[in-house]
């Protein structure tokens, strides 16, 4: 591939000049990500800005009418006499969102032209119009409205992409990995929409720059802060309020943004709990986003960004004998330096810290007990964008992460006797990756994006490996590994390939193969996504997850690109998937690794998508037909394939947005999904005079189908005022469908009285929920 690149660079190296620069929002100075730059000669030649708003394209000398465009913004056309390398910084003006006039004709077929498959960019303004639970705008819930993405449960921000587990999604906030994305047991995501600029979801054809996860990438960029004027915006909602302040530190050079959010569920609910069995329970969450940037000159810029969020659940027994506090949360910090070596070579260097902690602190009379689990990463990263010619966009780079995992750590004391899990250490690991990828036109019709990623992972000491005897119970030896000593390591080569073939100006066919390796694993014993789920690294016993995805799709636009449609089919093969063993019980006395079983997974399906992106009336319909299964030799299912909890045979989403007038926006969503596969109690027996339950086949029962309709209406104040104010009225679950959240079994009577009455029950959590949120900006 290097040889090919070098050749093509030489061929193009004569009498060509480079046009490069940044594209920004005119009023806020925010970089625009994925904005288009193109010229039209006998064919359209174009490029798009990277995540820092930078573009570069090299063209033969000549005079060009260059168009700069971004969805929701007015186009700018500049006439450029390209007789030398030129730097052009462009500020685009925000048009009426999604108005037809703004949208130019030729380049609005990015879905047809690009090699991207299964990639969707969501603009935060677009997300804000879609109705959500309690009026809390949530990017992770909006993502679930896309085909191929399944929700983890009622109101949950956890999601499954094409049959992959929630841990197989790489969720990045300004390049920092977010390990736990949910507040309040997953009902709200940690992403405060006011601080977010852009969200990209990649569910197939993952480019080589991303690594370490099998299923998808959700790349979230925070706003940089307005470098022109000071602004405050916020909102007051039913359960949480938000406030964001942003503005220039040095105009055009430096800006900041601070954004905070806190719930007041505790304040609202506590009075109602008094005297009930729930008395003493308290809960709240908050989060804080900050970012500053400084532009030294046209070639150097730095960004510092951070996120801190916590959930706190506490319980104080009314008589004060028991006191439990359970805080958990994420913290991330990212420092980045952008440097332009030349008009064609852009570099970003990042230093990133991120952590997720979960702890339980309890006091029961003279017994103290603390439990802690978490993960902490130090991450260094360098990425280059190299644009040698109009035909090539090359990316290469490397990264290194030092992981510290604490699957369980417990300590406690009773009177003066202390105990702890000091024999069960943290697990430390090095992870490194190196990649190169190039996107180029082979012919006028055929464009390919080919990449290769090399990855390395090693678990290192200090660590005590406990060796059990043949009975798997008695400890016969403990192998001690010293500081930095290698315990187990893995290397992998991950080829990535995507191709696009233009059939005619309105349609294209795309195909891709993606090999991925994942060295860290989330193990969950619950049917929901929870902060108690544990992150663990690959080790001598736990092998890396390996995934291969094959996909092919047909993309076609209708009526001057007003309607975008696509059909994609995929097949995904997964190795080294992890589950807890059948009889798993959380036990601090054992290494978590000894409770796992390993197996295979497969997922295949077809996704149908039709989207109307323009006009007063817009939205989309997505439908997915798919199957997702696992097979574990060491579970009771043996060699049989069983459906996973991620399996949704049918999955339909309809999103409709209508701009009624300058002041009123209406929107509605409808979702339908096959019921979750779950394991249910099939029969009963008596042991110890008590009724016990015997389960049916693993995930052998389908809960009733999930469906729901939400509506919302937004009323904005009259245009032209100094401040913006809007009211959002939304209704979640309009027809109050009792969707199953879980099913359980209960009985009355017992063996001693000679009779029992056994009943299955379904719990549904969110009935119809109206909500109102007031948002402001000035």
């Amino acid at each position, binding site marked *: 591939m290097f040889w090919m690149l070098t050749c093509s660079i030489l061929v193009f190296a004569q009498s060509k000049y480079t046009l490069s620069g940044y594209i920004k929002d005119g009023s806020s100075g925010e970089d625009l990500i994925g904005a288009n730059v193109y010229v039209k000669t006998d064919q359209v030649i174009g490029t798009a800005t990277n995540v820092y708003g930078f573009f570069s394209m090299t063209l033969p000398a000549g005079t060009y009418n260059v168009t700069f465009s971004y969805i929701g913004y007015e186009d700018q056309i500049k006439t450029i006499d390209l007789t030398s390398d030129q730097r052009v910084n462009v500020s685009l003006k925000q048009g009426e969102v999604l108005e037809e006039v703004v949208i130019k004709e030729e380049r609005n077929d990015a879905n047809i032209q690009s090699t991207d498959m299964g990639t969707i960019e969501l603009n935060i303004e677009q997300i804000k119009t879609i109705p959500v639970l309690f009026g809390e705008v949530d990017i992770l819930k909006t993502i679930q409205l896309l085909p191929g993405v399944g929700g983890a449960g009622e109101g949950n921000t956890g999601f499954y992409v094409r049959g992959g587990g929630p841990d197989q999604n790489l969720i990045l906030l300004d390049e920092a990995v977010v390990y736990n994305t949910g507040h309040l047991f997953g009902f709200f995501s940690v992403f405060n929409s006011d601080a977010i600029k852009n969200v990209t979801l990649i569910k197939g054809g993952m480019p080589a720059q991303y690594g370490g996860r099998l299923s998808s990438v959700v790349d979230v960029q925070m706003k940089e802060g307005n470098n022109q004027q000071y602004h405050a915006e916020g909102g007051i909602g039913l359960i949480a309020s938000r406030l964001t302040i942003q503005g220039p530190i040095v105009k055009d050079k430096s800006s900041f943004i601070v954004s905070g959010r806190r719930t007041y569920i505790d304040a609202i609910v506590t009075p109602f709990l008094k005297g009930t069995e729930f008395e003493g329970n308290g809960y709240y969450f908050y989060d804080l986003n900050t970012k500053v940037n400084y532009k030294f000159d046209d070639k150097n810029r730095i960004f510092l960004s951070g996120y801190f969020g916590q959930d706190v659940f506490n319980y104080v027994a009314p008589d004060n004998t028991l006191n439990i506090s359970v805080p958990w949360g994420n913290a991330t910090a990212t420092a980045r330096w952008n440097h332009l070596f030349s008009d064609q070579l852009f570099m970003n260097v990042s230093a990133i810290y991120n952590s997720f902690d979960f702890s339980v602190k309890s006091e029961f009379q003279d017994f103290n*007990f603390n439990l802690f689990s978490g993960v902490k990463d130090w991450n260094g990263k360098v990425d280059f964008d190299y644009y040698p010619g109009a035909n090539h966009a090359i990316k290469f780079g490397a990264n290194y992460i030092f992981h510290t995992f604490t699957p369980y750590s417990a300590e406690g004391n009773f009177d003066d006797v202390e105990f702890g899990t000091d024999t069960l250490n943290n697990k430390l690991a090095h992870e490194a990756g190196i990649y190169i990828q190039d996107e180029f036109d082979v012919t006028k019709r055929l464009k390919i994006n080919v990449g290769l990623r090399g990855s390395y992972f090693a678990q290192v000491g200090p660590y005590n490996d406990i060796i059990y005897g043949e009975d798997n119970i008695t400890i016969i030896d403990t192998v001690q590994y010293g500081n930095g000593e290698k315990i187990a390591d893995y290397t992998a080569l991950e080829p990535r390939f995507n191709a696009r073939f233009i059939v005619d100006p309105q349609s294209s066919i795309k195909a891709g193969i993606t090999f991925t390796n994942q060295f860290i694993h989330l193990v969950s014993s619950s049917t929901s996504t929870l902060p108690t789920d544990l992150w663990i690294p690959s080790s001598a016993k736990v092998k890396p997850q390996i995934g291969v995805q094959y996909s092919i799709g047909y993309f076609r636009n209708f009526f001057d690109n007003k309607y975008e449609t696509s059909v994609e089919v995929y097949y995904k093969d997964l190795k080294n998937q992890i589950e807890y063993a059948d009889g798993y019980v959380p036990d601090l006395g054992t290494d978590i690794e000894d409770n796992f079983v390993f197996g295979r997974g497969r997922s295949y399906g077809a996704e149908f998508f039709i989207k109307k992106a323009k006009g007063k009336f817009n939205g989309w319909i997505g439908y997915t037909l798919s199957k997702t299964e696992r097979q574990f030799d060491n579970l009771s299912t043996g060699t049989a394939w069983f459906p996973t909890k991620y399996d949704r045979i049918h999955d339909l989403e309809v999103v409709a947005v209508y701009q009624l007038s300058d002041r009123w926006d209406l929107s509605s969503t409808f979702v339908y999904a096959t019921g979750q596969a779950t394991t249910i109690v099939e029969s009963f*027996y*008596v042991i110890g005079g008590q009724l016990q339950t015997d389960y049916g086949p693993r995930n052998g029962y389908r809960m009733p189908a999930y469906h729901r309709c939400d509506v919302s209406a937004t009323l904005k104040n009259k245009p032209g005022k100094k401040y913006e104010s809007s009211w959002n009225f939304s209704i979640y679950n309009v027809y109050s469908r009792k969707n199953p959240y*879980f099913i359980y079994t209960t009985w009355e009577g017992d063996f001693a009285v000679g009779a029992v009455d056994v009943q299955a*029950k379904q719990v549904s959590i969110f009935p119809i929920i109206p909500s109102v949120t007031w948002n402001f900006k000035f």
Partner: protein
Amino acid sequence: MKQSNLYISFLSGAAMLLMLSACTTDITLDIPAPEPKIVVEGTIEPGLPPIISLTSTIPFYGEVNFNELDNFYVHDAQVTVSDGVNTVELVEYCLNDLPEELLPLVAEFLGVDLDTTGGFAVNICLYTVPDIFTGFPEFVGEAGKTYTLNITYEDQVLTSSTTMFPPVKPDSIYWEPHGNPENDSLVRLYIALTEPEPQGNFYRYFTRQNSEPFYSGYSSVFDDNLINGQSFKFTVDRGFNPSEEFNQDTYGYFWKGDTIILKWCSIDFPTYDFWRTLEFDSGTDGPFASATIAQTNINGGLGIWCAYGAAYDTLIVE
């Protein structure tokens, strides 16, 4: 020592919050009736003969009257127990056929409090040694031995084995008052134990309050992973009568004036694994729980065949 209780309490706290807005409805599960399985519950203790109950699973939802249920008890099975040298063939006895004076003994084994229930609601049937009523049965449990169980019923064969570990008697047992002085009539039971080397011991406990039978606690088994070889003190919940109504304020506590007998049993790993999985499964429910399958040690069936290396200690709370 097991600390899943806290984990459960966190999750149940979480579940409680959810329940505030939740709605529960009765549903009918549309599932084909599974084949019934044979359930074994058998014990052997030092100086006591093997006692085995053979029942059948109830493969449906709805009302169940154990006396009207056809084939709840598995009759006429061929049951043998062997200690590797001697083998005994067990015989079946049903309550309705037994003399009155033997009923308290049976109640003890079954954990039925005849004082409160006023008698047996179900015609219970058990398999035991043929010379049980002599008072001096020949085949009794002995620490250090492994007991294999063989059951043949129609075309089904069930097998299991269990090892009786030597009893470990606590150093002492004592009580402490309730943490809240307002509840001064309630006390907690504490155990001081010197846990013997090597690592790999497992325990199950039962308590007896006055004339009640022995009951196990909701979380009744322990391993020695964190406490191996140490001398330490800990508290255990009062064994819980399953037909008693759960009361959060008094759960786990004894009362002043109680006579408490602690039965502290050494058990083998399969026994430990069965009870901890069974108890964990019945202790968790809801969205945060997954089905924990009780790890039976019965090949070809469900349930448990366990040898208890039992030690006893008595405490009068004054």
